C-alpha cells in the first residue's frame, strides 16, 4: 500500500528551479531513503510534502487521496510530520511541554501531560525524561523530542531531514531502532541522508534526486552499492567544456596548513588533523558532502573559528594566532559561504561594503576619505560589472551574482597571496557562475594560490589542479582531476 505519492512536482524560486518534475513513492510501514547532492532538491520536495511550500505543479497524495496543503498545520493534520535539521524546540520548556505545545487541551495538569508523553516515548523505545528542560539535553535527546512531537500529533508519515548529521554514532544506531519500531506500526519514515552505510542499515528503499528530478525511484537498498549510488547522485561524467589548462609550474607554497583540528561546541572534531598546501598559482579543490567539515575548515583558516591545534601559514608566515583582519593583511582573502551576513553587511551600501577590508587606510586620521571610498567602490563596480542600482542603497536588494562579484572583487582588490573561496558559485545563475569561475582562473594565472571549497563536482573537475575530498572532518582522498573518475570521487565523498 502506498502511503505517500508525489508526482511531477515543480517548484520554482526566483532564479532557481528547485524541483523539476520530481516524484516519490513511499509504501506504508517502510523506511524510505531520499538521496541526492546538495541542491538536488530534496529539502524542497520534503517541504512540499510538509506543507511549507505549495508546489507550482504536480500532485501530492496520501493513502491515495489528493492533498493540497496550504500550510504546515494542514499537513500535520493530515498526518505528515517533519523533523528539521535545526530543531524547533523551546529550550526553557520541559520535554513534555515542548511535545504537547499547541496540541494539548486548553487546561491540563502538568503531571498528566508528562505521564502521557512518557508512555508515548516508552511505546517507541525513545529514552527520555519528560520533566527535564530541553536546554539540558544532548542533540540526540533533542531529536527524540522532535520525533515525539510528530508522534504526539499522530504522524503517519515522518520526514527526517539528515537526522544523523548531529548525532554521535551510538545515537545514530539508536535512531535506527526507533525508525524501525515506528515502521512496524505501519507508519512511513522518509529518511534524508548522504551516508550509504546508514541507508543500508536503516532503510528499505531509496529514491535518488539530481538537479530537481528523480533519477531512481524506490530502489531496494540491497541493490545499492557505493559506486552506483555515487553515480546516481553526481551523474555521468559529461564532457567539460571550459576545462582549465592546469598550472604547469607551481610557485612557492602560498598556503600551508599543518595538522589543523577544530572542535565544535559539542566537543566533536569537525576538522580532524587536516594538512594541505596550496602553491602560488595553483587551484586546490576540496570536494565533500555538506557538513563534513568544509565550513569549519574555511572559517578556521580565515580566523573566524579558533584552532584546537595545528598551524596555518601564508607565504611562510605563521598566521595561526592572528585575528581575521590581520590574516587578511598578511595576504589571506576569504570568500565565505555566507555572502550576505558574513562577507557583506546587508544593511550597508556598496561603498561601505567595498571598504570593509581597507577602511583603516582610506584617509589619514580618524575619518574615512569619502571620495576615495566612493572611487574604490566605483572601480570595483566597473571592473567586475556589478549591477548595484544606487551605489548608496543597502545591499540587501542585490541578486546573488552581483553580491558575489562585489565580494570576490573586494577580496581580490587587496592583491592577496591566498584566496579561500567557499561555495563561490552556489545558487548563482549560469552567467554568474561563469563570471566567478573566470575570475578564479585569471587570479590563479596571476599567481594567487586558491583553495576552492565546493559541492559542485563539475566545477571542481573543471578548475582544480588537485582535488582533495573531505569526509567526516578528514582529508579522505587526494585525486588528480585529469585522471580521476567521478565514480571514485563520489565514492570517497560518501565514505565508501
Amino acid at each position, binding site marked *: 500500500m502506498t502511503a505517500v505519492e508525489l508526482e511531477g512536482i515543480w517548484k520554482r524560486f526566483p532564479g*532557481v528551479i528547485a524541483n523539476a518534475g520530481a516524484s516519490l513513492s513511499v509504501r506504508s510501514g517502510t523506511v524510505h531513503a531520499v538521496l541526492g547532492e546538495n541542491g538536488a532538491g530534496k529539502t524542497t520536495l520534503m517541504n512540499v510534502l510538509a506543507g511549507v511550500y505549495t508546489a507550482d505543479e504536480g500532485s501530492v497524495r496520501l493513502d491515495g487521496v489528493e492533498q493540497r496543503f496550504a500550510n504546515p498545520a494542514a499537513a500535520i493534520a493530515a498526518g505528515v510530520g517533519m523533523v528539521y535539521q535545526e530543531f524547533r524546540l523551546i529550550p526553557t520548556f520541559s520535554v513534555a511541554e515542548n511535545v504537547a505545545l499547541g496540541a494539548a487541551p486548553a487546561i491540563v495538569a502538568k503531571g498528566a501531560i508528562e505521564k502521557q508523553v512518557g508512555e508515548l516515548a516508552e511505546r517507541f523505545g525513545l529514552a527520555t525524561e519528560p520533566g527535564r528542560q530541553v536546554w539540558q539535553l544532548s542533540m540526540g535527546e533533542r531529536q527524540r523530542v522532535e520525533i515525539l512531537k510528530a508522534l504526539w500529533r499522530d504522524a503517519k508519515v515522518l520526514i527526517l531531514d539528515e537526522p544523523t548529521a548531529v548525532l554521535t554514532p551510538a545515537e545514530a544506531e539508536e535512531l535506527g531502532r526507533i525508525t524501525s519500531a515506528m515502521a512496524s506500526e505501519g507508519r512511513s519514515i522518509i529518511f534524508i541522508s548522504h551516508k550509504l552505510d546508514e541507508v543500508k542499515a536503516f532503510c528499505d528503499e531509496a529514491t535518488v534526486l539530481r538537479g530537481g528530478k528523480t533519477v531512481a525511484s524506490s530502489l531496494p537498498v540491497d541493490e545499492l552499492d557505493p559506486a552506483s549510488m555515487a553515480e546516481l547522485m553526481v551523474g555521468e561524467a559529461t564532457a567539460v567544456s571550459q576545462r582549465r589548462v592546469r598550472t604547469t609550474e607551481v610557485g612557492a607554497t602560498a598556503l600551508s596548513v599543518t595538522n589543523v583540528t577544530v572542535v565544535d561546541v559539542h566537543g566533536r572534531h569537525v576538522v580532524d588533523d587536516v594538512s594541505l598546501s596550496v602553491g602560488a598559482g595553483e587551484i586546490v579543490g576540496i570536494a565533500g558532502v555538506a557538513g563534513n567539515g568544509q565550513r569549519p575548515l574555511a572559517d578556521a583558516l580565515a580566523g573566524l573559528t579558533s584552532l584546537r591545534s595545528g598551524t596555518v601559514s601564508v607565504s611562510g608566515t605563521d598566521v595561526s594566532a592572528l585575528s581575521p583582519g590581520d590574516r587578511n593583511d598578511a595576504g589571506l582573502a576569504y570568500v565565505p559561504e555566507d555572502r550576505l*551576513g558574513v562577507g557583506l553587511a546587508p544593511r550597508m551600501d556598496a561603498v561601505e561594503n567595498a571598504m*570593509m577590508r581597507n577602511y583603516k587606510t582610506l584617509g589619514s586620521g580618524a575619518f574615512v576619505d569619502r571620495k576615495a571610498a566612493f572611487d574604490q567602490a566605483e572601480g570595483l563596480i566597473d571592473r567586475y560589472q556589478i549591477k548595484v542600482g544606487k551605489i548608496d542603497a543597502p545591499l540587501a536588494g542585490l541578486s546573488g551574482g552581483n553580491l558575489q562579484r562585489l565580494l570576490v572583487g573586494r577580496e581580490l582588490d587587496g592583491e592577496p597571496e591566498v584566496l579561500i573561496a567557499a561555495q563561490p558559485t552556489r545558487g548563482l545563475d549560469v552567467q554568474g557562475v561563469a563570471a566567478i569561475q573566470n575570475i578564479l582562473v585569471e587570479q590563479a594565472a596571476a599567481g594567487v594560490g586558491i583553495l576552492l571549497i565546493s559541492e559542485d563536482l563539475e566545477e571542481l573537475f573543471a578548475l582544480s589542479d588537485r582535488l582533495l575530498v573531505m569526509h567526516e572532518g578528514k582529508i579522505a582522498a587526494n585525486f588528480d582531476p585529469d585522471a580521476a573518475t567521478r565514480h571514485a570521487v563520489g565514492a570517497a565523498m560518501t565514505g565508501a
Partner: protein
Amino acid sequence: MFGYRLARREKPLPGGQLVAFLVGLTGALIVGAILLIATGFSPIEIYIEMADSAFGSRQAWSSTLTQAVPLGLAGLAVAVAGSMGLWNIGAEGQIIAGAIAGAWVARLGPDLPGPLLIVIMLVAAVVGGGLLALGPALARAHLGVNEIITTLMLNEIAIRMVRYLVNGPWQDPTAVGFPVAPVLPEQAALPVLFNRANIGVLIAAVVLLVFGVFASRSKWGFELRVAGSSAKAAEYIGISLKAKIMTVLILSGSIAGLAGGIRLNSSDRIVEGISEGWGFAGIIVAALALMRPSGVAAVAIAFGALRVGGTAIQTQGVSASISDIIQALVLMGALAAAVFTTYQITRVGSGGQAEDNSAPDVSATGPATIEAGQ
C-alpha cells in the same frame, strides 16, 4: 490564511524621517483636536499657544532648548549603542548616577573657583554615568548577558541611591525634614547664555555634532555600523566585538551621565527627581532618529518643544491629562510613521505563497532554507 504583515523595505523610504514626522504630527493633532473640542476648547487656539510657547520668543526658545539638552544627550546615548544593535535602557539611571557623582565632587571641593569646579563636576558626571554602564558592558561582552535587562534594573538602583542620599547622609540639615541635599556652591551654576538657556546648550550641541559626524564619517563609526549590521561580518573584518561592546556601552552611559551633570549644574541642588524621565524619553528620541546619532538633535528639539508647549497649555486651563494625551499622541504618531519608513505592509496569501515572493535567503524563507539547485 490571508492577512497582512509588516515586511522590511529593501531600502528606507526616501526622505522618510521628515515625512514620517509630519504625517504622525498631523494625525495626532487631528485626534487631539477632537479631544480638545470635546472638553470645550478651541483646538486652533490651543495649538497656536503650544507653538508660541515653544518657539514664539527668545524666552520660548530658551525653554525648548533647555528641555532639549537632556533629551538630546539621552537620545544620543541610546542611539550610539543602538547603531551597534545594543539597547541601553539605563540612560535614566545613568543620568542620576552622573548627577550624584557631580554633587559628590561639589561636596568635596565647595571652595574651588567656578570654572574649575564646573569642569570637575561635569567630568565626574561623565565618569559616573559610564561607571553605571560598566557592569552591563562587562556582563554583555564577556558573558553574553542581555544588556536590556541589566541596564533597566540599574535604573532602579540609581533611583533608590539618590533617594537614600537626600533622605540620609546628604540631607540638608536646614531643610527641616525635606528630602533635599544642601544647595550647591553658587559658582557651580553654568553661565547663562540667554534667558533660561545656559551654556549646557552649547556643550550638548557640540557633543551631538561631534558624535553625529563621528558616527557617520569616522572609521570608528564605520566599525560600529558594521557590527550593528552583522556581528559576523564585523568579526570577519577583524573587529573585536568584546572590545566594541565595552567601549560603546560605557560611552553611552557617559553621555547620559553628562546629561545628569548639566542638569545638576543648572539647578541649585540634587533632589530625588533630578531626572524628569529624560532617560526613558531618550529611547523615544533615538527611535525617532532611526538610531542615527546625526538625527538626534532635531528630534530632541521637537520633543523639547512638545514638552514645553504641553506644559504651557495647562496654564490655559487644559487639564494635565489632556495635555499628556496630546503629547503622547504626537509621539505615537511619529513613531508609527517612522516604522513605515523601514517597513511596509504586505498582504500575505496562504503559508506557502508568502514564501514564494521573497528572495531565497535564510531569513526570508521561513522554516527551511531553499536548496539552490543549478
